[in-house]
């Protein structure tokens, strides 16, 4: 996994609650057996005016000029400012893959759906929960000031805003550790292989009906 320490970037607002994973990446792109290349189809149904298909030449498709991702002032954005319950719906990891592939490294929202939240950490994307008032203020600042950027300081758990102020944020200590080091979960878990074996042997003795071979 990519390391995450300090990230400075431009904010893009997505002013909509309950953005679901079909909105983030529509299902036809889930047919791919790869885990890269989803960025051009991020928010596909809103970003383009026609229906996207896997393998199509996206550079020829008509863009929806109204959609925020296509607006000149948000080109190059890497911090997504979102509303409640972001990432609800399916478990598809294609959602964080698409966000990451497009270039988003941080998502700020008042709340996230559980599976999506979890999937982000596995891909070096940092989802940050802020209170509703703070999110509202950020929406206002981003609208008022073109080029509104900030620095996300993971070691200090602070957002450094352009006016010099800072906002603290929470992150699980173990997840933070993994992001800072760019650690692979499987590698970490396999360090406990002995413990897993011991557990498994005990469980097989206690509940043999889960292990019956057919």
């Amino acid at each position, binding site marked *: 996994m990519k390391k995450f320490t300090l990230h400075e970037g431009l904010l893009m607002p997505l002013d909509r609650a309950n953005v679901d994973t079909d*909105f983030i990446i529509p299902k036809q792109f889930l047919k791919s057996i790869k885990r890269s290349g989803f960025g051009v189809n991020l928010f596909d149904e809103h970003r383009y005016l026609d229906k996207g298909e896997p393998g199509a030449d996206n550079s020829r498709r008509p863009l929806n000029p109204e959609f925020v991702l296509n607006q000149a002032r948000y080109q190059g954005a890497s911090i997504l400012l979102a509303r409640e319950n972001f990432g*609800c719906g399916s478990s598809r990891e294609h959602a964080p893959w698409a966000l990451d592939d497009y270039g988003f490294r941080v998502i700020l929202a008042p709340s996230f759906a559980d599976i999506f939240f979890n999937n982000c950490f596995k891909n070096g994307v940092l989802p940050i929960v802020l209170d509703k008032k703070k999110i509202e203020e950020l929406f206002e600042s981003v609208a008022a000031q073109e080029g509104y950027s900030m620095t996300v300081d993971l070691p200090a758990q602070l957002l450094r805003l352009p006016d010099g102020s800072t906002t603290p944020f929470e992150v699980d*200590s173990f997840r933070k550790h993994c992001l800072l080091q760019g650690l692979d979960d499987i590698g970490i878990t396999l360090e406990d*292989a002995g413990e897993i074996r011991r557990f498994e042997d005990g*469980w097989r003795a206690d509940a043999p*009906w889960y292990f019956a071979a057919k």
Partner: protein
Amino acid sequence: MAAKTLYDKIWDAHLVREREDGTALIYVDRHLIHEVTSPQAFEGLRLAGRKPWRAGANFATPDHNIPTTAQERSAGLAGIKDPVSQIQVKTLDENCQQFNIFELEMNDIRQGIVHVIGPEQGITLPGMTIVCGDSHTSTHGALGALAHGIGTSEVEHVLATQCLMQKKMKNMLVRVDGTLNPGVTAKDVVLAIIGKIGTAGGTGYTIEFAGDVIRALSIEGRMTVCNMAIEAGARAGLVAVDDKTLEYVKGRPFAPEGALWTQAEAAWRGLVSDDDAEFDAQIVLQGGEIEPQVTWGTSPEMVAPVSGHVPDPATEEDPGRRSNIEQALNYMGLRGGTAIADIKLDCVFIGSCTNSRIEDLREAAKVVQGKRVADSIELALVVPGSGLVKKQAEDEGLDRIFTAAGLQWREPGCSMCLAMNADQLGEGKHCASTSNRNFEGRQGFGGRTHLVSPAMAAAAAVHGHFVDVRDI
């Protein structure tokens, strides 16, 4: 010893280790696999030179991408016209062969939607931890198993380690008291729950569904309720084990037998929350107050009783909510204040892991028997959840009732629930659907989904608009 909820009990029994910040390693008993969320995980294993920790704990089947017409299916893999889908299904077959994982392949009669065949085969057992790269894994909680969806990185993690790294959720109890009125089903119950607590109401919780209404539901009905726990934001839904659970499981192909069954049964009887167990949140609904439900918007919480109306955004004071309603109505092509019964329909879809089991098909068949689909309905699909459900329905003559009424009878799969195959809802079309998600574009680009029960979908097919099944 402190009183425990059912969730606490299953969690504690599977806890391998816990770190100081609460991150835990949980042992996984069953891992279910389908073609869409697994290829990158198998590829990851190969790249790292790893093998599955316990191949026998894994079960696979293709369901999302496969065609549902008999003609295409009869040609096997070559019958999948979309080459990208074909590669994905083929990749699953190859991965299962390479890693020695049991797979019910596309044309095995036991194949079906992964959440339908797990319980049907006895692959899902009470008290298990079950995961799958699919959010509707919550379905299996109906049998008193702790089951939830995971992402592809976690699929790889479970394959490699037989464990999942996660933090414990909080406990929520949703109790539905009293009895349901005739014509009101499990689907209406769960839609009413989501309408009450919202699509994020269960975020961070495992929900246990309880109360007389839940106890009175069949196991199939409980699956419908747990299936949509994720639509209320909860990764897992649970129902305590009772006699019905044990009767359902007994004799299934992968269930324990003989002395092992006797031992298991004794253990499973304890899979209930202790009387004095504490829940972090509790919600109570009265079963008698629940009407048949219909969603009008683009999120499952945007739901109303069939006798109700689409809300009028002008009367909504909260600006955030007003704009959500406006966005939804705009997409749905509906005006605020429209009576639910006046919503005209173009399509009907009866299927999905929410409502494609035999009892669902019987309910729908009862409504359409001897009737015809309304002229205005362009497409009406009935897609059984598994090959065995299909066979059972055919043995009972349900297929002929459907086809005589003008509905199409298809082969098992996810089909138009998410429209990854050729079964797609047309742009701007309104569909009465027994599935679980009404998100924008979910059933097809620009398609407009209304979530309902099987009986309500069948009645809508006959009338061309929503009607209250209690009136017919």
